[in-house]
């Protein structure tokens, strides 16, 4: 293909503008977390702190139980990811392995849960969680999130790409469903499992609304809820500290992205191709 220089240049201008808008808030968050407060106010447009300081991070470590927040967030995200992966693997496999009446209906009603707006569910679920005495515990947050419609969909997609003949020959040799899932299917879909797991983890790590309702006690807070504490001080005395907490909150997803970029992008792209 011949390159049209003018066209190529215009494309780059548009894309670079988009990249600047996309990254500027992230750069801003990083730089403000290393700035002293008066610097944040004096030169809001300058991304480089003139005399970088760790003071904001020291304050965060000293004044807030930040390690508790990190642990609470991790604890919930880890178990939610583990259970969602397990239930999605099992259900996804069953959809590929079994044939039965009403399969499409079952599949669609599982996928539909993905589109039900959360607020339609939160009040009844809140009442239920409070009824069984799990308010203010991480288990109350996790319990409603042990299965995932999108996860089942993506697992089934991944398993469908395994050649039918491979599965059939294993069945002919007398392999039961559990053996088949563990020893034939799972190794083949491992890349998808990793990518879907990362997606689950990041989503749970970033979650705000449901934990907000369930976790009332500061000692139970996740990072996203802890961020809220800085907004009440809207006078603006805490910007640097707020940005330091924001950076700490964003680090795990960003690090995961750095290492698993290909996996993540490919899974997200798969999710879109067949809607």
């Amino acid at each position: 293909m011949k390159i049209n220089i003018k066209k190529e240049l215009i494309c780059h201008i548009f894309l670079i503008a988009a990249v600047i808008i996309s990254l500027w808030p992230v750069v801003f968050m990083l730089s403000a977390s290393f700035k002293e407060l008066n610097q944040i106010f004096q030169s809001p447009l300058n991304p480089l702190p003139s005399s970088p300081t760790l003071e904001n991070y020291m304050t965060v470590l000293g004044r807030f139980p930040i390690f508790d927040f990190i642990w609470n967030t991790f604890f919930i995200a880890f178990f939610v990811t583990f259970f969602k992966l397990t239930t999605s693997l099992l259900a996804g496999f069953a959809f590929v392995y079994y044939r039965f009446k009403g399969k499409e209906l079952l599949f669609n009603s599982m996928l539909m849960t993905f589109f039900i707006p959360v607020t339609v569910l939160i009040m009844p679920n809140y009442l239920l969680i409070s009824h069984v005495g799990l308010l203010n515990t991480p288990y109350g947050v996790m319990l409603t999130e042990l299965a995932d419609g999108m996860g089942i969909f993506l697992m089934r997609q991944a398993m469908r790409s395994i050649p039918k003949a491979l599965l059939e020959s294993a069945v002919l040799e007398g392999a039961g469903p559990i053996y088949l899932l563990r020893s034939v299917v799972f190794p083949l879909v491992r890349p998808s499992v990793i990518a879907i797991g990362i997606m689950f983890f990041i989503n749970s790590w970033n979650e705000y609304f449901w934990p907000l309702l369930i976790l009332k006690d500061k000692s139970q807070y996740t990072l996203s809820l802890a961020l809220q504490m800085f907004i009440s001080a809207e006078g603006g005395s805490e910007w640097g500290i707020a940005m330091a907490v924001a950076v700490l909150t964003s680090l795990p997803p960003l690090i995961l992205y750095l290492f698993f970029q290909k996996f993540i992008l490919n899974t997200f792209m798969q999710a879109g191709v067949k809607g």
Partner: protein
Amino acid sequence: MNRLSGKGYAFFLPSVLIFFVFYYWPLLVNLGLSFFSWNMVSAKAKFVGISNYIAIIQSPEFYQVVGNTILFIVFLLVFNFILPYFYSYMMAHMLKYGKTIYRSLLFLPSLLSLAVASIIFLWIYNPMAGPVNEIVKMVGGTSPRWFKEPYIVLFSISSIIGWKVFGYNMILLLAAMVSVPREIIEAARLENASDWIIFKKIILPQTSSSAMYVFVITVVFGLQYVMVPVNMLTQGGPDQGSANLVYVIYQYAFVFYQTGKSAAYAMITMMLFTLFLGWRSRVADKKVYYEN
């Protein structure tokens, strides 16, 4: 392959249980609660028939909230559907160099949490000394109070979601754009077809099923994402100026403690969403070109 039998049900059981208890049962609970007046704490709930629904439909607030919802949808569609669509086209079919790097960088904001995004933009839009204000001042204007004025607040909130979701949706659309066979486009180019003709006659129809999906998630998820900045930054204000249909459900339950109205709002919203999704699948059946 195999008929579902005893052991097979065990594979579905965990998911079915979770979905029933925490997704479908709550819909029924909501339907029930919507006929009662109850403040969540008192032991007794009073049966009031359909008067919650009537009260909602007769209140000016309902129409304001529906209006806000529509404006949110318009902004979100521009930021998270139309723009990503053109960008993904540009990246797949006009650009030669730098695709992978642009892709990686533009996706990055979607990894950050909405809580983080909200707090960053609270500062970015700070009307006293925030960066946007500085830029407005440089070109000689005065910055509005971004989160405190009617209508402007809808734009400011949507722009936060727009910033976060743009790259994600672009990646979804890019997957569809890339899968349009190159040969068709090359052939059209040989016939001297313009970019516009190629876009309209080849790209648009070939990407329509993915575009439809992104259109739907932009609306359905966008309205839910909006709740995070709304709750953190405006609490639905000024004067319910940034409350949408998804957010009022939360407000009536957990801020005003009127579970009946909350449930009635939930049913109305659910109905509108269902109509929207139903309309989508009808359009999809008729007009959309499915690859494979």
